[in-house]
Every structure is written in C-alpha cells, then in structure tokens.
C-alpha cells in the first residue's frame, strides 16, 4: 500500500469520527422524549440549551413555528431615512424577540423595506405577532380639565341634536360601503364579543335608528362616568356608535386643536359589563418613551400586574417638573395612542414610576409591555404582509413521514446497487452511506437548517452519488469488454467518467445556487443540502471508491 493511500485512509477515518461526534448531540436530542427533556430542563437547563444548540437545526416545516414578513411603513418617513429606519426597526425587533425567549430566532432584512422574522417551535403565535408588530410609542400626556371637557361634550351634544340625523345615517351607510370589510369587521368584532343584538343587520346606522335615545344628549348618552374618575366609560357595544359620532365633521370641528380623544388599551369589566375607557387628552407629549431606561413587570399589593419603569437622568428631570406642576391631576400613559392607564399624580416623581394595567390585564400583558418598552419604539410602523404558521403536529408528522420515505428510498437504491454490481456495488453502497454521513455532519456543523424539501435534497444527493458510481462502473465494464486488463479498465473507467461527473455536478450546483439566492426558508434548505451533497459526493464517490479499488495492484477477476 502506498503512503498516500495510507494517509487517505487516515483522513477518511478522522472524518468519520468527526462526523459521528458532530451528529451525536442531534441523535441524543431527537432520541429524548418530551418527559426526559422536561426533567433535564428543571435540573440542568443550561445543558439542555447547549444540546439543542448543537443539534441540527430543523426548519419551520419540521418543528412548527412562525414565519412573518414585516413591511416598514414609509409614508411618514423622509427621503433618506428609510434604510436607517429599517435597520433600527430590525434591532428593536431583535431585542423584543430575544427577550421573548425563543431558541434560534431568525431575523433579517429582505429587500429595501422588509424584515423577515422566523420563530421556530413557537406556540403562542398571537402574542408573538402583537409583540413584534406594535410600534410601541410610549407617551405621557395630561388630561384636559374636567370643566373644559364638560363644555366640549355639551357642545358636541348641541351640535348633534340640531344636526340632521338622516345625513349622519347616510354618511354612515356610505362610509360602511366604502370601508367594506372595515364595516363588516365591526360587525364581526361585536359578534365575537358575544353581545350582539338580535337583528342581523348590525350596522351602526341601523342601531342609531333603533335607539334615537336621548335626543337631548345624542353623544353623551353613551358615556358613563363616575365621581372620582377622570375618564368616561363606553359600553363595548356602543363603541362603534361613539366612534362614528366622533368622526362627524361637525364634531371634529368642535374639538380644540390642543386636545384629542383617546380610547383605553383594553376593555375593563365593571359590574358585570365590559367598558372601553374614553379620555380627552392634551395633545402635547410631556414625556416620551425614549427616556425610559428599564421596565419590569410586577404584581402590586392587590396581586394585579403592573409595570415598574425607570427613567434616565434627563427624563427624571422632565418627569419631576411635570409631576411637580400637576399634583392631584391625572397623567395619561399612552401606548401607540391608546391609554394604558391614567393615574393621579400624588407627589413629585423623579425617575421611577408605575404603569398600572387595570383588572383585565394578565402578567403576560405586563411582561410584553415591559419587553417593548425596554426594546424601544419602532421608528416607523410595520405591517405584517406575510404570515405562515406551522402547527407542531404537522411538523412532527412531516419529520416522521419524510425520514421514513427517505430511508425506504435509500434502502432500495443500496439494494439495487449491491445486486447489480455485486461486490463493487457494495463498495458503492459504502460510499453512498459515507456521503450521507458527511452531509448530515456538515449540515450540523455549519448550523444549516434541515427542511422537508431538504430531506428530498438528501435523496437527490443519493441519486447523484449513485449516478456517479454507475458512470464509473459502466465505463469499467465497457473497458473490460474491449479486452483491457482489469487494472487498466479500472483506471480508464475512472479517468473517462470523471469529466462527465464533474460537468454534471457543476450544472446541478448552478441550479442549487439560483434556488438558494431566490428561495425562501424551505427552498433554501433544499438548495443547501443539495449543494453540500454535490461537493461531498465528489469526494466519496470518486476518491473513496477509487481508494478501495486501488488497494489491490492486480486483479484476476473483478466482481462488478
């Protein structure tokens, strides 16, 4: 045996051991049942995380999860701000996702104004979507005084009672037709809250007709207030009516420039009924979220969730000034234009504060709010334009079926080669097995993602591997027929076949490269396994099989 052959055998052995070592975590991870994972999670959580990290990454189609594409709304941005805004948004979203605690999230830019977020294994899809998608603009605003508020409300009543309600109904109908889905959505939303009226029409104009109600107070009849509170409560059912009325041009004209109406973030339950809160706020932003340095979710003394926040020094100064000047007055804390809470300032506050979240909120709401506050507000609003969710059962199903089918196909190929080419076929089988081993190890080591099409890609690699061996063996058979010695036939076979093998592999690579460039998620996974397979194949099918054939210098017969 030549020295070079010895080195080659050594190299191959090292590669085999390295591959097995690289794949060991994956096998361990896949082999563990859910119960075993839970057990490990409680005793040694770090080890579990490490194990998961080292195993082969599974695509969304195999482990379930969520894939969203966000588009940054550039309508309010200036010319050059776009790319910067997208980068900042990316960072902020990454921050939020990191805190959410998903293993191996994938977040990257796509095109000029899109952000792709992939959260494998995620179960709580809605929560993640709202966490990612909200702008999270935090603002502190004062409320309008009750005197001013009352006079504004009175004027609205007057204007509306004088107005021709039929024109409002017309407008309502037209608005609904124009908004089409929007109007239907209102209906749908009310139905979902389960308090719909018996009539199926359900559009707001019909309701206005039904309940002319108090002609003296066409607007304020829907507003309930209680002595101590500074806001008004509107029954869930009646919110659309109130919004419609607030949108009337006559009403809009009445509202002074420095104030605006705002709704609460969520509907509260009070005396067995659900209400939205309506506030009249001063538009001026006293303090914005950019002065926030930290936010933590907590339980208050009544076991209700709240968020404790800390301000920067500068923010603390501003906050002290504002609170100092407005003792006993309410301060509204708004998130994306909705009032989270409006506590009354009891004393000057410097740099820490509390956002109470009301009775309906859960500790998760508080946690999510803390997350977005800590990560910061998005520089521009984003919209989810693409959304794919794979449920966990489908993922497991796909893994099971895909691997079984792959193994069956694999087995068939191996069997055929062994039967048709006898001993040489078995050598070819070994090379194909090594091909797969190296391929999977490479994918694990490179942290490449295995997707369902990726499994198909592995099968195709097996096909190419088999093709290469067939090319070589057929050529050897041909050469043997022309009367060459066996040794010469083997040499000639390899030489002639090599060119064809290289050419065909390169053309496959071109296709794979194109697929990788233009594909998304699962398609990329396919392109990766195909490309890696092609490279590794050149090594296993040609070099390794050659090595085996070269072990003997002379052959009297060849089992091929």
């Amino acid at each position: 045996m030549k020295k070079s052959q010895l080195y080659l055998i050594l190299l191959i052995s090292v590669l085999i051991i390295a591959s097995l070592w690289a794949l060991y975590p994956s096998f361990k991870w896949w082999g563990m049942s859910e119960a075993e994972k839970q057990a490990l999670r409680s005793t040694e959580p770090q080890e579990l995380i490490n194990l998961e990290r080292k195993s082969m990454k599974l695509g969304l189609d195999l482990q379930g999860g969520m894939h969203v594409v966000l588009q940054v709304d550039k309508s309010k941005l200036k010319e050059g701000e776009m790319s910067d805004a997208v980068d900042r948004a990316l960072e902020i979203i990454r921050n939020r996702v990191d805190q959410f605690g998903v293993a191996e999230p994938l977040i990257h830019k796509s095109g000029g104004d899109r952000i792709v977020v992939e959260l494998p294994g995620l179960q709580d899809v809605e929560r993640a979507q709202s966490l990612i998608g909200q702008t999270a603009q935090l603002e502190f605003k004062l409320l309008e005084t009750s005197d001013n508020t009352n006079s504004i409300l009175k004027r609205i009543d007057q204007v509306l009672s004088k107005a021709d309600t039929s024109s409002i109904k017309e407008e309502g109908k037209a608005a609904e037709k124009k908004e089409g889905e929007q109007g239907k959505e209102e209906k749908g939303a009310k139905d979902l809250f389960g308090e719909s009226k018996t009539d199926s029409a359900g559009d707001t104009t019909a309701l206005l007709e039904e309940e002319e109600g108090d002609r003296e107070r066409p607007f304020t009849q829907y507003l309930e207030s209680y002595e101590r509170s500074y806001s008004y409560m509107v029954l869930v059912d009646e919110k659309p009516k109130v919004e419609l009325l607030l949108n009337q041009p006559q009403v809009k004209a009445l509202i002074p420039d420095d104030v605006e109406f705002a709704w609460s973030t969520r509907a509260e339950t009070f005396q067995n009924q659900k209400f939205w809160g309506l506030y009249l706020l001063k538009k001026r932003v006293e303090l914005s979220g950019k002065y926030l340095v930290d936010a933590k979710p907590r339980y208050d003394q009544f076991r209700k969730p709240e968020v404790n926040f800390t301000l920067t020094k500068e923010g603390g100064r501003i906050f002290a000034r504002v609170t100092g000047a407005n003792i006993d007055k309410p301060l509204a804390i708004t998130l994306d234009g909705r009032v989270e809470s409006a506590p009354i300032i009891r004393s000057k506050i410097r740099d820490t504060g509390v956002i109470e979240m009301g009775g309906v909120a859960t500790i998760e709401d508080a946690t999510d709010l803390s997350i977005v506050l800590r990560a910061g507000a998005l520089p521009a609003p984003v919209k989810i334009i693409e959304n794919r969710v794979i449920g966990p059962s489908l993922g497991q199903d796909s893994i099971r079926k895909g691997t079984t089918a792959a193994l069956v196909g694999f087995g068939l190929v191996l069997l055929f080669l062994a039967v048709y080419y006898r001993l040489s076929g078995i050598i070819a089988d070994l090379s194909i097995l090594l091909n797969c081993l190296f391929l999977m190890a490479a994918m694990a080591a490179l942290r490449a993602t295995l997707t369902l099409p990726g499994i198909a890609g592995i099968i195709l690699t097996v096909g190419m591997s088999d093709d290469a061996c067939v090319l070589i063996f057929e050529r050897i058979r041909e050469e043997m027929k022309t009367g060459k010695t066996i040794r010469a036939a083997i040499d000639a076979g390899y030489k002639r076949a090599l060119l064809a093998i290289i050419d065909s592999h390169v053309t496959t690579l071109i296709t794979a490269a194109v697929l990788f460039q233009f594909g998304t998620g699962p398609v990329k996974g396919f392109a990766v396994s195909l490309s890696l397979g092609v490279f590794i194949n050149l090594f296993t099918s040609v070099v390794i099989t050659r090595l085996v054939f070269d072990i003997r210098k002379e052959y009297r017969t060849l089992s091929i």
Partner: protein
Amino acid sequence: MLQILEKTNINFIGKRHYALAVSGVLVLLGIVAFVSIFLGKANLGIDFAGGTMVEGYFEKQVSIGDLRSALSRNRFDDASIQSLAREKPNYFTIRVKTTTDEEVTKISKDILSVLAKEFSDNKFTMDSVDGIGPAVGKTLQKQARMAVLIAALGILIYIWIRFDFRFGVAATIATFHDVLVVLGILFLLHREMTLLIITALLTLGGYSLTDKVVVYDRVRENLKLFRKKGDFATTINTSINEVLSRTIITVFTTFMAVFAIFIAGGEVIHDFALALLIGMIVGTYSSWFIASSIIVEWEKRAPKRFK
C-alpha cells in the same frame, strides 16, 4: 455480471421527427399552462395569488355545507373550502382571498375564532396557516421568473464553455422543453402551483441537464475518435446508445428513491415529488430525442467542422 442492456443500436436520431412532433404538442400544452398561470386562471397557490389559507382538522364530523355557511355568516362568504383526504379525518383547507390591505394575521385569527365559536363543541386543530398580502404574491412571481432566467443563462454559459455553443443552446432549449412539458402535465392534472413546485421545476431542470451532459461528454469523445470517418448523425446516435445502460440504471434508481417520497413522504412534499418523477422521465426522453436532434439538424443546415 448482471447486465440489463446488451449492446444496443436504437436509431434515436432517425426517429426524431416523431419525437419532435410529440414534443411540439406537449410544449404547446406547457405554454398554455404558463400563460394561464400568468393570467391567474390556473390553480395558483397563495404563494402567488395572495390570500390566506388555514389547514386543519376537526375532532368530530363536519359537513362542508355547515362549514361554508358558518363562515359565510361571519363575513367570510367568499371562502373556498376543500375537504382533504388525509390521515386525520375531517381535514379541511379554507382559503380566503385578500382584497384589502388588512393585516394578514388578523384574517387568519378571525377565521380561527369563527371556527371556535361556530363549532364550540368540536375542537379544530390548526395544522398550518399561510397569510400572504396581495403585494407579496406578485413579488414572489417576479422572483420565480428571475430565478428561471438566471438558471437558464448559467446553464447556457457553462455548457458553451465546456463543450460548444450549439451544445449549449441545444441543452438550454431541451431544458426549457422539459420544464414546460412538466408544467403542462401538472396543469392538466390541476395541481396547485406553489413555490415548492417551482423549486421542483428548477431542480429537474438541473437534473435532466446532467443527463445531457453525460451524452455530450460521450459525443465529444466519439467525435475525437471518428473525426475522419462516419457522419455526424451516426456518431451522435452511437453515443446515445453507448450511454444507454448508464442512463436507464441511474434514472431507475433515482426514480425508485423519489417514488418512495412520493407515496410515503407526506402531503407537504407529495406534489414536489410528483413533479420530480415526471421531470426525470421527460428529461431522459429529451436527452435522447430533443437535445441531440437540435444539434443534428443544426449541423445539417449549417455544417461546421467539429473540434
């Protein structure tokens, strides 16, 4: 040794006229398919058409009629519902077009809440949700077209470099032929056009190309040998015959492997595997009859000394 084919001498080139006629029809079908897709008349997956799709199964029996009326009652009166025969019974696909600018997540959320409300005693397990905004579908279409174009260019250039310009052109035409024919057949079978199918088409293009490369390689070798004797067409014919056994065996084994995925790999990659299977057969056929015929015809009309 076991041998499937002894020395053959099938006159592929001789039969090329029949083949070209058959191919002509199939390619026409493919073009029809392509145009239909373009016009949105084919069975477009939401990858390209946009929309929201919810797939899942109910615990208990539900009739399509009930499902349809339940959705209509709750604003989804244009939902397209299909009952799928999967392992789990009561499996449905619900598709809704996206006409507005509404957030896609909201639509899927609403669909799921409607199902929860209307069938409150019959749990619906969501297997997958896909929501594509209207603009995205168009982008994906554009990307798919770009991908095909670039792949074709890459192939042409590579074959040109390695072999010959004419070989390159013939290979590219043959590959396009393969993709169009498979597209036409899938269209005939009314399969849904998704990103995965496009992937399959590109893959089979690359794969059938390897077949042609193997033939070309043999042609190149034989031309060197037979430069002085034998005419061009015969050389090509001989070359194809010589690699025949390799071609049959390779296609057979790979077909077996992909076939396993086709029947047992699950619904998600079922159509993908189908496209590959059809593609393998068509690709082999086109290496024998199309790619080589083009070169032969070309040589006949514009003879040139082959290097």
